[in-house]
């Protein structure tokens, strides 16, 4: 696109936006000059208050886990909105009543109760309380229950696992049928490039000769995180990797492998750092032990923060249109091209970030495992130096 056309496009966009603000200002001026229509004003007020825009609720509603998979809502003038959602099974364990399993559609709509909390009606002795960022199933009699429901995140995880298994097993079948003698075809091409990249850039440099034991773990972690990041970007997708419980489990997995395979050499270096003057050792040991736990925690927070922040930014950019539309419809419509341009840019960035964060998680897992299984350097042995990425 030539420079002149780009300039005309920008002038058109900002001119439309500016003109709609100008028109809105004129409209406001006219309204305040003619206050002699109390009837229509009274009619207009209840409609506006019912559709009051709660941006925080919209954004956190998309980010948080829920017991139903909410797809979209259809707004009706002066009435209840129709919520289109897929109800998911609720499985709760009550200490005295035992297991209960039912569909979450039995709970019905949530409304504010006397204390100002959003609660649903009771069903079989349970009800849902919706907080700002998550919702809980609470027993009516206040007992501590164990919520083992299939929530939106768990359903998304099951879907991603099914997709992963289907893709990987079908490609694996091609190898078991044809062996390594036939040229790769179809999806095999892409997968070979990625697997060889992980093997040569991540596994071999960090793990040395023992990379074959850990390559399945690294590949699983990489593809699992990557596909969940991608699924979370779809409209109506669940925010799986942007949930700190999920990333905590992934980090704990890496930590367990790190600890299980650690060698005496690793612990002796940790608790008795060589070449350090005696008076500095206690302080250094404290820092080393702290860093042992901080490394998986950083893994957890890095993935969680990147994905959640990306989702929040995209949702906020789209919500800006509705915030402006609540002031004046023309302003909202005028802002749509700007918001859409930013949102498309953010989506591309999120695609990149999703892939990069999956790679970084796998890479750092490989680095930490490599540090744990490191052999002592003998004087007459030639060892490959690992890539040390210092935290």
């Amino acid at each position, binding site marked *: 696109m030539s420079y002149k056309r780009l300039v005309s496009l920008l002038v058109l966009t900002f001119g439309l936006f500016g003109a709609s603000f100008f028109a809105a200002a004129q409209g406001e001026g006219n309204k305040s000059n003619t206050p002699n229509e109390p009837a229509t004003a009274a009619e207009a007020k209840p409609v506006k208050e019912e559709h009051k825009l709660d941006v925080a609720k919209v954004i956190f509603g998309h980010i948080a886990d829920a017991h139903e998979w909410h797809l979209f809502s259809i707004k009706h003038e002066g009435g209840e909105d129709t919520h289109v959602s897929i109800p998911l099974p609720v499985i709760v364990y009550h200490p005295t009543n035992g297991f209960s399993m039912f569909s979450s559609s039995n709970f019905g709509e949530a409304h504010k109760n006397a204390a100002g909390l959003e609660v649903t009606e009771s069903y079989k002795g349970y009800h849902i309380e919706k907080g700002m960022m998550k919702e809980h199933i609470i027993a009516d009699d206040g007992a501590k229950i164990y919520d083992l429901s299939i929530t939106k995140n768990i359903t998304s995880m099951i879907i991603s696992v099914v997709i992963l298994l289907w893709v990987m097993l079908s490609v694996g079948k091609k190898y078991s049928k044809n062996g390594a003698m036939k040229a790769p075809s179809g999806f095999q091409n892409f997968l070979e490039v990625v697997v060889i990249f992980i093997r040569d850039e991540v596994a071999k440099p960090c793990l040395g000769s023992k990379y074959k034991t850990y390559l399945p773990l690294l590949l699983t972690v990489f593809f699992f995180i990557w596909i969940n990041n991608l699924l979370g970007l779809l409209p109506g997708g669940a925010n799986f990797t942007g949930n700190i419980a999920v990333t905590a489990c992934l980090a704990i997995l890496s930590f367990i492998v790190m600890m299980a395979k650690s060698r005496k050499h690793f612990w002796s270096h940790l608790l008795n750092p060589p070449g350090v003057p005696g008076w500095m050792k206690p302080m250094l040991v404290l820092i080393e032990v702290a860093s042992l736990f901080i490394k998986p925690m950083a893994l957890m927070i890095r993935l969680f923060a990147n994905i959640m922040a990306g989702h929040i930014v995209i949702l906020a950019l789209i919500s800006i249109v509705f915030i402006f539309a609540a002031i004046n419809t023309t302003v909202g419509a005028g802002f749509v091209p700007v918001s859409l341009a930013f949102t498309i840019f953010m989506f591309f960035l999120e695609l990149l*970030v999703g892939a*990069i964060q999956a*790679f970084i998680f796998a890479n750092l897992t490989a680095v930490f495992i490599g540090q744990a299984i490191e052999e002592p350097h003998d004087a007459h042995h030639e060892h490959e130096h690992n890539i040390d990425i210092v935290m």
Partner: protein
Amino acid sequence: MNIMLVASGSVAAAGGAIGAGIAALGAGVGIGQIGKGAVEAIARQPEAMGDIRANMILMAAFVEGVALFGVIVSLLAIVL
């Protein structure tokens, strides 16, 4: 003292917003330095462009991760 307690919600929100801004500042400076180093290295040795680009993106993701730690803390300051 009374005024501070009454307004503590909005002061927390202001603190959170300023914290997020400072985190973005840190990320901008850090990633800018990474970009500067990478571009200078490519200028010195254009045939290493692929390696340098891969390392630049990796380092940028690390720095951005640290900036997002700060964003999460700011979000907690506003919400909690």
